[in-house]
């Protein structure tokens, strides 16, 4: 599916890192980099064009979460944004009062194609938000839904086979502010603080046609003040350094209009000068949705789709998701090992191999030594034993024999004594005996 890889691909495939080019950590060993600006045309500058083509083939996807109290025209605005009836009639017109107090999560999908470019759109609606009397916990199910989506992605990313990862993470959260004309409500602030680290937060002033231009300007000012005092991070598009002046101006203009005051309408009305426009007809005139003078709808659309959809997605993947993941893994007790983020260095590798080799050699030597020594000492012992055994046995036998000799000699001398009288051949045997000893 077209939508499935793009998130994944954009994050890692290119080796594009979220860190800017200039930010190079100083490694222990200086890495030599040749820097050159080419005059001729080599052709790698064609890569963005290749991406352009590729992105058309792959298609795009966007997951938008809309949060706001009921009756602020969420579904109407969405329908207006994408210029089609995303919300079926049944779900759109249910009166708020019949809703249970619990916040529900509902998602709708649509595939939109325009000039051959496909967008898979998912709108995550949160009916029931802020409708209860006590809304202290009404954000929990929303926050846990955002977390779940991150978890799903994390799980998919860690799988053995992950050819297709469906990106269901929330790329933008449109928060509808009630056009009270005062300032942000405690619920608004609490909610925004709960989610601003997890999603690209886009606050809008709903149904801005109920306020005058001056009121809107004032209201916007107050909201922005609140946002600043409460340290709430809302999504602001980054400026490209290579942008032309027009783009820079329009981006600046767009940022200045935040939070966008919007009016939603899908119905066509006829203006005083007889044009057919999307808008709301009042007795005192027509509010044109697509007219920048009348409301900030066009700005919102630019931010969400026309100009910054990819940036919303990039930021979701590279910043918000990464932060969530880092925290989650650290909580799970996985330690950071920064040694793996190291430039390849052949010398270092050689040294490592050398250490490995030396360890192996040492182990080999030790093993052989022990075997050798053991065998040698075994053998030595054996030989020593047989040596001593030899002597011992010899001694034993000799003693025995000598004893015999003694006995015999005694016997002989006895006999001889008794025989002296006969005096027969006493010399001869004595000689023989001596002979034997001398041999």
């Amino acid at each position: 599916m077209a939508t499935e890889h793009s998130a994944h691909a954009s994050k890692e495939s290119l080796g594009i890192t979220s860190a800017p080019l200039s930010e190079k950590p100083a490694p222990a060993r200086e890495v030599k980099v040749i820097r050159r600006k080419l005059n001729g045309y080599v052709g790698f500058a064609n890569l963005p064009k290749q991406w352009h083509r590729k992105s058309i083939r792959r298609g795009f996807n966007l997951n938008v979460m809309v949060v706001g109290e009921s009756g602020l025209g969420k579904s109407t605005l969405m329908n207006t944004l994408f210029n089609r009836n995303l919300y079926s009639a049944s779900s759109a017109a249910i009166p708020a009062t019949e809703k249970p107090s619990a916040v529900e999560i509902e998602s709708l999908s649509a595939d939109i194609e325009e000039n051959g470019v496909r967008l898979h759109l998912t709108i995550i609606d949160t009916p029931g938000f802020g409708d209860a009397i006590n809304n202290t916990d009404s954000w929990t199910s929303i926050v846990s839904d955002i977390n779940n989506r991150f978890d799903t992605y994390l799980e998919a990313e860690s799988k053995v086979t992950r050819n297709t990862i469906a990106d269901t993470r929330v790329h933008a959260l449109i928060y509808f502010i009630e056009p009270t004309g005062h300032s942000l409500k405690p619920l608004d602030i609490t909610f925004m603080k709960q989610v601003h680290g997890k999603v690209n937060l886009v606050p809008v002033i709903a149904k801005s046609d109920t306020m005058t231009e001056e009121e809107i300007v004032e209201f916007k000012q107050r909201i922005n003040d609140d946002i600043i005092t409460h340290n709430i991070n809302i999504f602001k598009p980054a400026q490209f350094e290579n942008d032309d002046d027009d783009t820079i101006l329009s981006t600046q203009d767009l940022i200045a209009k935040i939070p966008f005051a919007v009016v939603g309408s899908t119905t066509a009305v006829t203006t005083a000068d007889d044009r057919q426009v999307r808008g709301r007809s009042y007795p005192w005139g027509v509010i044109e949705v697509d007219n920048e003078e009348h409301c900030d709808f066009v700005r919102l659309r630019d931010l969400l789709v026309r100009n910054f959809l990819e940036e919303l997605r990039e930021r979701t993947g590279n910043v918000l998701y990464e932060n969530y993941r880092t925290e989650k893994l650290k909580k799970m007790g996985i330690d950071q090992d920064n040694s793996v983020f190291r430039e390849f260095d052949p010398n270092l590798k050689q040294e490592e191999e050398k250490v490995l080799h030396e360890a192996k050699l040492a182990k080999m030597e030790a093993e052989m030594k022990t075997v050798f020594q053991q065998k040698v000492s075994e053998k030595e012992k054996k030989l020593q034993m047989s040596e001593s055994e030899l002597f011992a046995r010899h001694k034993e036998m000799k003693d025995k024999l000598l004893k015999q000799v003694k006995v015999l000699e005694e016997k002989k001398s006895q006999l001889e004594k008794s025989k002296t009288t006969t005096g027969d051949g006493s010399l001869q045997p004595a000689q023989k005996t001596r002979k034997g000893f001398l041999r």
Partner: protein
Amino acid sequence: MTVDQVGIANLPNQRFKIVSKEGATFTLMVAGESGLGKSTFVNTLFQSTLKTPVDNKARYKRGIHATVEIEVTRAELEERNFKIRLNIIDTPGFGDNVNNKDSWQPIVDFIDDQHDSMMKQEQQPARGDKKDLRVHACLYFIRPTGHSLKPLDIEVMKKLGTRCNLIPIIAKADTLAQKEMNEFKSRIRQVIEAQDIRIYTPPIELDDQASSDHAKSLIESMPFSVIGSGEDEIEVAPGQFVKGRQYPWGIAEVENEDHCDFKKLRSLLLRTNMLDLILSTQELHYESYRTLKLESAETGSKRSRRLHNPKFKEEEEALKKYFTEQVKAEELRFKQWEQNIVTERHRLNKDLEEVQATIKDLEEQVKRIQLGKK
């Protein structure tokens, strides 16, 4: 701009912008025997002197027996405001020895190591600044023998093809005449097919006639024949310069499609298929390495690191030899010892025999005396 346009048509432009801003990382490996113009080719391709030739002194220092090394040249090139971080991986020493068995191992290991490193980096909780040296394209330089691929080529290419985008190249194409080149190419293609060597082929997008025609023409020209040129361009006509090689018999032009396939190769590497090379490395080669690695980790088998430095082997041999000699010396000592024991035993036996003889003697005497007595 009509009212009912949501702005989706502009999305590809956003991607274009983001990529333009971020630039890209591209890692190109040049493999093949030395003297095939790898460095020259790189310099010609990027139109700047990235790699300088090895001077003779360094060669002598290294000795005639080469060990295969991995050399990384890093560059940051900018063209039309677009920046790439370019890594050139060279493998000096490959194929230069009498015995080239296993000489591909350091190259193959390098590619695997980069995948491995990326896996490890990806697994870290914080992984902002990843160092990526995964090889997006590997150019394998074939010597223009006019014969076919050599067994060494085949062996290496088989191993490279399953790990990265392998692009075979006929180096120094200016030594093969047209007919010879055609035959050479056809033989190489036959070998690649018969030996199941996986080479990179640009995808053919059937719904886009122009691009599929281009891809087909690229595929048909494989393996690309290339000519490298020196630093200076040659003046062919007053004020008109070309990249090429000046011979006494003419100028072989690098960018002339009749002379070689340089332009096609450049298109494949940079102009039309660079992204595909990068993406397929990520989605095909890296993923399959990762899957394999994780699967083998599950079954518990672990890749043991083989060390290829010939010095290491020598040292091991020396150690073994040392022990063998020790054993021999000890054995000699024991043999002598045993010999001593044997002679000693002989001596002692003799001693005993003598005593025995005495006994016998005495007994006889006693007997005689007794007899005599009687």
